[in-house]
């Protein structure tokens, strides 16, 4: 592999990175771009990371996970615990003189006076940051180990990941779990001592998000071009042949699953200080499926596709939920169907399609990215 990026791609990516990491925040600082727009783009970029995490599983390995929102939310919750503790004296119960131990408001409201033991380490942001990696990592490791060991694949894997997410959602709704129940975490004040309301803090967070996305992109671009990436795609196209060639497909899948969980989790952790709230509805099955749609719309099996998909679908959502609040879900559902039926490779395949139409030459038939069920020979 001589180089990770081809020349044109390198130019394209650096231009985009330059724009989003340097020019965009500068424009915001000088007041050309409003804070709301910057905030929207921060959100889009977090979602883009989530979409990429779906893509390396689905587009590159043929595993459709409907549980990515779980890892995303877990990342949010882990950092959220730290942010909740940092509210401290500024909480409304503490302000009114109750709550002497400055525990999070919702715990005080539930009748606790002392901080539960498992909350205590989260005073340190280092611990919280480690937990963003450790908890989703461990969960995906255990679940992935069990699932891939018993060769659960295809739609079974999708259903099980969905059930896992659903189970966790129900769990986080319970008040006794001490994770905020129905309302989740909200009303954060500071991060690293800087106020979350300040435009400058938001700008820094935006830049951090954009840089993380760039790093994720480059890392995955490299990974998918190594021999590892080749095995990954081979598993997608015919797992049986990979097994017969002597590869431990389960280990490859487990690695990708954990990696993808971690990317989602980091995206979630970046998401929460900017959006300022997390609650269990973020884990609902529809959230995971939305991420799959971003990936499908943009084009799976490519890394730029999910980014384009996440940004464009969310921009569309942003517009449609205001203009046609009743019809948004119908839009989204229709998008699912149309993309699946008529544009299986997503919008990134559009230029090629148009070019083929113009040249009036049939494109060389390529194998579908997730060709399932290769005719088996006894």
């Amino acid at each position, binding site marked *: 592999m001589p180089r990770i990026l081809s020349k044109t791609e390198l130019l394209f990516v650096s231009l985009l990175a330059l724009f989003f990491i340097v020019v965009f925040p500068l424009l915001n600082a000088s007041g050309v771009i409003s804070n709301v727009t910057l905030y929207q783009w921060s959100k889009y970029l977090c979602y883009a990371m989530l979409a990429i995490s779906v893509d390396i599983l689905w587009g590159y390995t043929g595993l459709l996970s409907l549980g990515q929102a779980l890892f995303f939310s877990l990342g949010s919750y882990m950092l959220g615990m730290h942010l909740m503790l940092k509210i401290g004296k500024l909480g409304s119960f503490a302000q009114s003189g109750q709550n002497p131990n400055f525990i999070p408001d919702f715990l005080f409201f539930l009748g606790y006076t002392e901080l539960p033991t498992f909350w205590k380490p989260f005073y340190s942001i280092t611990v919280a940051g480690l937990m963003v990696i450790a908890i989703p990592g461990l969960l995906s490791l255990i679940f992935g180990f069990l699932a891939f060991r018993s060769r659960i694949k295809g739609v079974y894997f999708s259903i099980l990941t969905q059930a896992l997410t659903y189970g966790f959602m129900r769990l986080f709704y319970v008040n006794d779990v001490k994770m905020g129940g129905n309302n989740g975490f909200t009303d954060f004040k500071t991060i690293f001592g800087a106020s979350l309301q300040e435009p400058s803090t938001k700008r820094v967070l935006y830049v951090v998000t954009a840089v993380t996305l760039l790093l994720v992109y480059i890392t995955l671009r490299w990974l998918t071009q190594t021999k590892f990436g080749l095995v990954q795609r081979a598993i997608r196209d015919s797992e049986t042949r990979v097994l017969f060639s002597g590869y431990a497909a389960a280990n490859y899948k487990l690695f990708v699953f954990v990696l993808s969980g971690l990317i989602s989790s980091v995206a979630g952790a970046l998401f929460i200080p900017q959006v300022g709230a997390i609650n269990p509805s973020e884990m609902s099955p529809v959230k995971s*499926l939305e991420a799959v749609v971003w990936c499908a719309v943009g084009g799976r099996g490519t890394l730029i596709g999910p980014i384009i998909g996440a940004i464009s679908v969310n921009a569309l959502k942003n517009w449609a939920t205001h203009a046609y609040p009743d019809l948004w879900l119908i839009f*989204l559902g229709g998008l699912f169907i149309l993309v699946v039926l008529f544009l299986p490779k997503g919008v990134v395949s559009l230029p090629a399609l148009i070019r083929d139409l113009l040249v009036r030459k049939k494109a060389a038939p390529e194998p579908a990215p997730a060709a399932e069920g290769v005719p088996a020979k006894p």
Partner: protein
Amino acid sequence: MAISSHFLSRLTARHRSIISGALALLAPLGTLLGADSARQVIANAIVEEEADKRIELVNSLVKMKDESVKPLLAAWEEDQIFVYQASDNAPKIPVTLMGDKDAAGTRAAIRVVDEKPLVDAEGKPVRISAADAETAPHNSALRRAFKTVNDLLALSSPDRGERIAAINIFGMAQEPEKLPLLESALRDEKSGKVRHALVEAIALIQLKDSDLKVRVGAVQTLGKIGSIPSRDFLTALEKETEGADKPAISKAVQQAQAEIESHVKFANACGTAFAGISLGSVLLVVALGLAITFGLMGVINMAHGEVMVVGGYATYIVQCLFSEGLHLAPFGFGVDFPGMHLKGDAFSWYFIAALPIAFLSAALVGLALERGVIRFLYRRPLESLLATWGVSLIMQQLFRLIFGANNVQISSPSFLSGHWTVADVDFPWNRVFVFCFAIAIVIGTHLLLTRTSLGLLIRAVVQNRQMAACMGVKTHRVNMLTFAFGSGLAGLAGAFLSQLGNVGPNLGQDYIVDCFMTVVVGGVGNIAGTVISALSIGVADQSLQKVLGDPVYGKILVLATIILFLQWRPAGIFVTKSRSLES
């Protein structure tokens, strides 16, 4: 089974009323033959001057078992019966007052003897004012006699439920003077349930007995029959005997309490198991449709839950059409459906009418889904999952736009309300019905698959699609019909669910995860696996809810168990054997 036995009881109730009506017609005949009717006896008693004779007359009412006795005695006691005397020497006539007051405050007088308007010598109806008239006299001895008569009549009521209710009231009141009455009733009683109630009531009364041995015996009896209502009495007795040195009683009480406690636990366990089975049978009907479509076509239909909701809303529409009509306003266009304004039993039939409509409407939706979306995706299961999810989002939003975001109320038909009690375990009729219907559906599906030509084609396509196509099977048509059938089953499940809870746009989402779990655990494409997994998931879910005290922990535990179970049997309980590498 549930309906038929219920109908039976209704039928006998109707018979009974016919019989009593016939008896009422015969009553005047009895008078002619010399035997006085109950009304006659009461009328005689009211005008009787001698106190002893009057009580004797009242007591003789017990043998008559006439339905008019109770209201008449009550009216007598409440001073609603008046004695009319046209002149000083004229015979006294007992009357009741009927109709509205006129300007002078008088009301029409009705004779107690035959319920006919009282007429004077000229044939004009007599009107009396309640304030001026003389009321039928009664004293405390007489009122005691009334009570005894009423009690005895209740104990000999032809209706088993009324008898049990009367006996339970006696037991709760703990009046020793009722003891001989109950004991004599116990000698004649044949119905097991009533005997149980009698034994319980006698033991409860005996708890107050002065003889220590009788009390201990009563306590032991209560423990033996596992009497739940006696728990409070036993606790009171325990407190009472705490200070006093009566080891025999306190020992017996403790033992009885333990016995009752274990009986309650048993009853609760049975109740939980039954709730689990009925939840399982709903899951079963929903998952059966899913198992068929998934097993046959390898298509994951994420909109299956919404197809089920179509069945629920179809039931709702039929209900509205049977009663007050329906106003819908989708997309701002108001549509009115006139209702038939049926009431009572006629209205209850709506549910029977709704079942085929729910099946057909859901089947039509399934057909449209198959033709419009799924048939393009047979070789791409993951994509079919996404596209059908899109369909499910659209359908949810359409439900919201058409029927509103809130749940709609669906009332249970009268023959499904109430419950059947066996040894303190309640079996609600609607759950019994769902369970029985689920069994019928499983058997029907099994017969369809094994005994019909369509079933043969379906099995051929499942086993080897290409080979079936080569043999001339129109696989596309088989797909279409199977998908419609599976969707129809979901519609039926929606109709059932409307009896267990409300129907709303999100109902499908609540069930879809459980349903997929059921299919995955059962093993794709076979009915037996789906039945076993649906019932075991249902029972496990309900009993874990009870044990852990929280529905959420129960659900999560079930989920974890399923994941571990799939480690042991990755392809479900029953595996369809295949020689192909990738299935």
